[in-house]
């Protein structure tokens, strides 16, 4: 359930954070640019944060299969993962997005796979 008293303050808080990051070029030191090891590591962070947000949902069914009380069984686990649809669709989005460098193609491919597994 959404916490109604916190919702509006949270929205304004997230808005403040968003504005801060989008106007970073105003308050960061001039000519700021992460270089060297820190720069390489930092360049991974935005995409990985998005991956990390999606991972618990995508891997939830796999985790349940691995922790099943009567032990992990490959066949039923694969059937469950396919029926759930989240992990296959997330993998398709990742592969198509990285390969085509195109967010829309990635989303359309992922939704098609998810829809096919869920509703057919």
């Amino acid at each position, binding site marked *: 359930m959404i916490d109604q008293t916190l919702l509006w303050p949270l929205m304004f808080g997230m808005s403040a954070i968003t504005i801060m990051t989008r106007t970073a070029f105003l308050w960061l030191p001039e000519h700021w640019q992460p270089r060297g090891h820190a720069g390489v590591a930092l360049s991974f962070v935005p995409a*990985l944060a998005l991956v990390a947000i999606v991972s618990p949902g995508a891997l939830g069914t796999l985790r349940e299969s691995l922790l099943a009380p009567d032990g992990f069984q490959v066949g039923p686990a694969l059937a469950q993962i396919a029926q759930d649809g989240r992990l296959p669709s997330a993998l398709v989005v990742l592969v198509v997005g990285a390969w085509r460098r195109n967010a829309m193609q990635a989303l359309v491919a992922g939704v098609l796979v998810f829809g096919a597994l869920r509703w057919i």
Partner: protein
Amino acid sequence: MAAPLLGIVIWGTVTGLAMIQAGLDRAQAVGMSLIMYAGSAQLAVLPLLAAGAAPVSILLTAFLVNLRFVMASAVLARDFRSLPRIRRFVIGVFTVEATLAGYLMRGRDGRTQAQREQFKLGANLAIWLLWQGATLIGIFGAGVVPTSSDWMWIGQLAVLAIGAPLLRVAGSTGAVTVTAVVSILSIDLPAGVGLALSTFCGAGAGLIGHYLFANRNQPHHD
């Protein structure tokens, strides 16, 4: 130009739909869209809001998702250096994925600072209008589709699709794998903590992979 605009419409509609499916009422959803105007951050925090996650987790998540704008700030700082602060602020606040990408690809070359500002402000306004309209379609269209957690997952796929094109550099496969594994191992930690932990472990793995494989793949440009 048509494809990015279609993208805005699709993402806006998905975001509107996901806000309603997450349990916001229409006024709250419209408010969120106007106040935040941050599609990927909105989509990212919706499951956390719906699950009643700690405010710190939610704010940290919004910060990490928006970090990519900080990465682009060096270019904007250079291009708009001599504008008054308030005008740079306006340029920054309304900079979203689409306007940034459009500007970097075709708004800069052979233009004066004044022309760049015009391009950027025009794109910012057009995308803002299109986004808000598409969000409204999603919010008010949500009533005609059945309630299902499947819509929330499509919102999550939309978040992932924004990140995936950034991943075609040496070391990405290892970085994604480590991020995913750590995120599932840290699933019992507060959401924002698990997110930060798995992101930074993944970035560390990416750093190692980058130096191991950089020679064989394309050079890294960031």
